[in-house]
């Protein structure tokens, strides 16, 4: 019975994703409601935290397509995140005078960031892969710089506040102090992104990406237009960041350039490397774990060691980026596949059972 169910889910991966996420959506709030977790922070705090972590999960899944599937190193992923958020700010805020609904801004944000991805990828993707890394690194630095300096349009370092929030018929406008709608919305978005990423990965397109990652020259000699497919990966990854950006902007109701610094790009990359490059769920779990190390564990260590000699004087929050850097290096040296490596050999195909 268990085996047959497992086999069924292997052939219906979208359903598998929906079931797993439903389970997560039920289990996480239950866990947060237990007294142990309540000791750290109140239930609503946990739920808000989950929704914030979800933003990083989305980013990690998007970056996984670019880095994990197509093997292109994007070091400026935060730039696309920023573009998504600012697109939202221009499309749906009192400041801009436009009030496009959130639900429409999601696809708009995705398309705008995808096109930025193409614009930045097109000149460089024809060249060697490492040039892409440096150009994206520069792009990640320049976009916040441009946002900061175009203060006429972006209000510079002050940022744009008062962005519109999502609205649904029965629930009404989402409120910042009511975490439930945000939590559910986050899970739904992750589900959609995961299903999309999974379906593309297990198609002709995903195979083309993997072929390019394994051996670009052989991929071209097997009929794959490597430039087009690399651009496609880049654009799809960017659009995921665009969706995450729109979600963040509407959730905080505020955007400013320093939300999208280089450290965000490195954080997402660390999440991916920790979770397992190429593995959808690995990326998601890596993002979730690191987010909680970052926003809960280190904070708790600070609280916990208050007054303790030596340890109490360390600001653990300050250590976080050092830890991420170390995580990148150590994982690459010791466990390049991540904590949850892509399981390749055991991978089943839809038609296998037909024979």
């Amino acid at each position, binding site marked *: 019975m268990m085996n047959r169910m497992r086999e069924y889910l292997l052939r219906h991966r979208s359903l598998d994703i929906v079931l797993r996420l439903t389970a997560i959506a039920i289990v996480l709030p239950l866990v947060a409601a237990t007294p142990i977790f309540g000791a750290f922070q109140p239930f609503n705090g946990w739920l808000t935290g989950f929704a914030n972590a979800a933003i990083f999960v989305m980013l990690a899944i998007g970056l996984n397509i670019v880095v994990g599937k197509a093997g292109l190193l994007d070091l400026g992923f935060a730039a696309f995140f920023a573009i998504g958020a600012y697109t939202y700010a221009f499309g749906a805020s009192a400041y801009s005078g436009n009030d496009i609904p959130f639900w429409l801004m999601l696809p708009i944000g995705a398309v705008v960031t995808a096109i930025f991805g193409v614009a930045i990828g097109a000149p*460089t993707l024809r*060249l060697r892969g490492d*040039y892409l*890394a*440096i*150009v994206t690194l520069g792009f990640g630095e*320049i976009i916040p710089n441009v946002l900061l300096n175009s203060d006429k349009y972006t209000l510079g370092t002050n940022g744009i506040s008062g962005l519109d929030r999502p609205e649904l018929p029965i629930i009404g406008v989402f409120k910042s102090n009511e975490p439930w709608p945000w939590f559910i919305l986050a899970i739904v978005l992750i589900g959609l992104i995961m299903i999309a990423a999974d379906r593309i990965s297990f198609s002709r397109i995903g195979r083309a990406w993997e072929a390019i990652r394994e051996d670009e020259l052989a991929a071209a000699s097997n009929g794959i237009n490597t430039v087009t497919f690399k651009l496609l990966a880049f654009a799809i990854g960017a659009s995921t960041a665009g969706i995450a950006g729109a979600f963040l902007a509407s959730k905080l109701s505020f955007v400013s350039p320093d939300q999208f610094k280089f450290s965000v790009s490195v954080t997402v990359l660390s999440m991916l490397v920790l979770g397992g490059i190429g593995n959808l769920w690995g990326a998601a779990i890596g993002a979730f774990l690191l987010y909680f190390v970052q926003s809960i564990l280190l904070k708790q260590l600070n609280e916990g060691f208050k007054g303790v000699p030596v340890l109490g004087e360390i600001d653990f929050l300050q*250590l976080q980026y050092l830890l991420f850097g170390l995580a990148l290096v150590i994982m*690459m040296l010791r466990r390049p596949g991540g904590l949850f490596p892509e399981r390749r050999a055991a991978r089943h195909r839809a038609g296998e059972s037909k024979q």
Partner: protein
Amino acid sequence: MVSPLAWAKRNSVLLWVAAVAIAFFLAVPPVQFVNALTLGAIYALIALGYTMVYGIVELINFAHGDVFMLGTFVSLSILIDVMGVTGPITNPLQLAVVLIFILAVTMGLMGAVGFLIEKLAYRPLRNAPKLAPLITAIGVSFILQNIVQLWKGPYKTNFPQFFPMDAALMFGSVRIGLINVLVIAVALILMIALQLFITRSKTGRAMRATALDPTAAALMGVNIDATISRTFVIGAAIAGAGSVMFGLYLGITDFSIGFLAGLKAFTAAVVGGIGNTLGAALGAFTIGFTEVGATVAGFSRWKDAIVFILLVAFLTFRPNGILGSDSSDRA
């Protein structure tokens, strides 16, 4: 004998750069011209390390800019905490001794840092998939930034101004700061020394051979590991000299300068033709002129973005740089 026209055609970009430099010289005040050269000299010192390492192992060493940044802090700490230098030194002999000492020590220490980074982070990954060393490099860069941030705090720190900043040479009515002369001279001396080292010494020959074909070089008895290690050491040491010059010239530093400085130096390496040490110098001066030009034209806020556009433009239209040949690899 090559006809002048054919020569001009082959070196059109080089001529173009020369023309731009001359136009720049005529358009801006001489002081700005010297500032551009000085800035270019500092970028050149960083760019050399990028281009050498890329030439030999085809790795963009993202940590290089942060080695430079670390160099500024190491040298200022030695100056203040060890040597007790905080203010200007007027005695020329004493000044020369302090200068040479701090240059030598910083170069040595940064060389050691370069050695350690290569040995611990890059060497184990030499045969790993291409992505692995790049990710490690960005990790090392991040580690260095955060170590310095923990050590010195996230604030701007003053560099001891022991060099007389108001001393100047007069050429008629044109006044050129002695500091500018110093930075340019140090950069030129190191560049010439490096060029001689690469072309004349045994290690230099081994480096060139390894860059061309590591397997063949190994078969001819070149110790690949040692050669690569030395390349990192030399590149980092020259960046260390750049740190001291940067500190003296701008008088201030913070933990995040390595990022942009590295990006610009890498742009310089690409503009000049990556893997080419002469090209790196040429590219660095191009960046210096671009930045100062942008500032003079009133776009100082946009100078970083302009340099980035320059990088993308070169990668699009002339990926092999000013001095590179025009054959882009399609494979």
